[in-house]
């Protein structure tokens, strides 16, 4: 935990300036050992599996506190079976799911280490899609 005086200036550190976009809309950049990525720019990206087939669009990530850190456990990739390209086009997709089309919607759970984010604009799962679990409940809507 950072001492309070540092926390007040947290927004003003040099990293805030350097890590802004470098003409790359996915907002990735390198900084020391870890690479930084903007989660909100990953959303709605089309995710393909190891065989190149479209699984859907990245719509959610689940995280948990592990050893004092907030760690991403898995990514949720959703799409209408057959229309995976439509994925989570927010309003339209949510409308359809609210009105009962939810049974046609499939959400894959991709563990964080199974998603290749080296190209943030084209996330790739490291395995074929049927090797991933799907979410049953409508909790995602």
């Amino acid at each position: 935990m950072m001492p309070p005086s540092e926390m007040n200036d947290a927004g003003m550190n040099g990293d805030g300036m350097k890590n802004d976009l470098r003409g790359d809309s996915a907002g990735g950049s390198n900084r020391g050992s870890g690479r930084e990525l903007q989660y909100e720019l990953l959303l709605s990206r089309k995710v393909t599996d190891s065989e190149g087939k479209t699984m859907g669009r990245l719509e959610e990530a689940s995280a948990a506190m592990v050893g004092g850190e907030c760690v991403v456990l898995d990514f949720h990739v959703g799409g209408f079976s057959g229309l995976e390209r439509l994925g989570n086009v927010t309003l339209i997709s949510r409308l359809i799911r609210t009105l009962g089309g939810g049974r046609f919607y499939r959400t894959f759970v991709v563990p964080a280490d199974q998603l290749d984010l080296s190209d943030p604009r084209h996330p790739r799962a490291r395995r074929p899609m049927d090797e991933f679990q799907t979410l049953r409940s409508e909790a995602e809507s």
Partner: protein
Amino acid sequence: MKISQLSLGVVTGIGGFLEAGSIATSAQAGAVFRYQLIWAVVLATAGLVLLTEMSGRLAAVSKRALTGAIRERFGFPYFMIVLVVGLVLSFLVLATEIGAVATALQMASGISYRWWALPIALVGWLLLWRGTFSVVENSSAMLGLISMAFAVGAVMMHPHWGEVASGMIPTLPTHDRANYWFTAVSIVGASISPYLYFVYSSGAIEEKWDESYLSGNRITAVFGNGMGGLLSIAVLVLAGLVFEPRGIKVEHYQQIAATLTPSMGHWGFIIFVATLAITAFGATVEVMLAAAYMTAQGFGWEWAEDARPREHARYSLVYTVLVLLAAVPLVIGIDPFKVTNFSMAISAASLPVSVLPLLVLMNDHELMGDHRNGWLSNAVLVLFGVLSVVLLLVAIPLQIMGGGG
């Protein structure tokens, strides 16, 4: 909910329902089609009751105002669509309402509306700037009751009530088809103004509503808007009695005073001018507030109805810039009545942007818990959703073809 809050809510609904747009569209409807379009007012009022009740329930249960809930569930990009549409519409409705107040003052003083527009904008601005909205809200609600004069006038002229009642059943037009549908669309746009339920849900948050307010919310939504709808019908009936038999089309606010003079003589003129000025001015301030709320809530700034500019610079500048811009079309001489017709069509066309998200939000388990929509509310809301999309598709073509004043 306390009785005093409840009655204020109902009174605000009555006084707030009737404003320049409803007066103008109802009068035009009555003048050309007699009682035939009463069903459009009934339909629009029902829609407003629905949307008001839902946005109040959303605020009370989820503890978020409508814009905030939209951003949280649909993300920043969709919020920007809602914001841009909302600000454009606010600009148009502001121009409409300021134009109506200016016209009323022109009728009273003989001085052109073009001179009145800026002073009116400044007075409205000052009321918010000095943090006195709550005073405005209460007094314009009370003063707005003067609009009940239309109901009195309608009753005094003894219309054939059977005929009036039959207007509640939708019928196809026998003449002026494009104009008929355009007027119907405008009536919906005038009655279901998004600023109404956006401000309503924000007010519910400021007053810290919780589940115990839900029945009061329903009563306010039904009676406030319901009575307001009756007043719109009264204007329509009066126009049908006074203008339709003579084949007179309504093309200026000034003409509409003639709906009250047969029953009230010269007082009718005075009461009309006062009603137009008071109701349109109340709407002016409320639209300014709605625009500032929408922007602040979506971006996460502090907001409050009596927010002072020294502590809320960004928020205050939103309504300041907006109201000054809205006065411009009037100052340069664009006809207020034409502005009204145009704005009401755009208002109708923009409905899907707020109605469709509500369909998702009101069914969201985490936001609404046990107070999610039942199947009946959903069915009605879906119908309105479909209707709003139809309106979006037809409003502009109809404007070009048959209406637009």
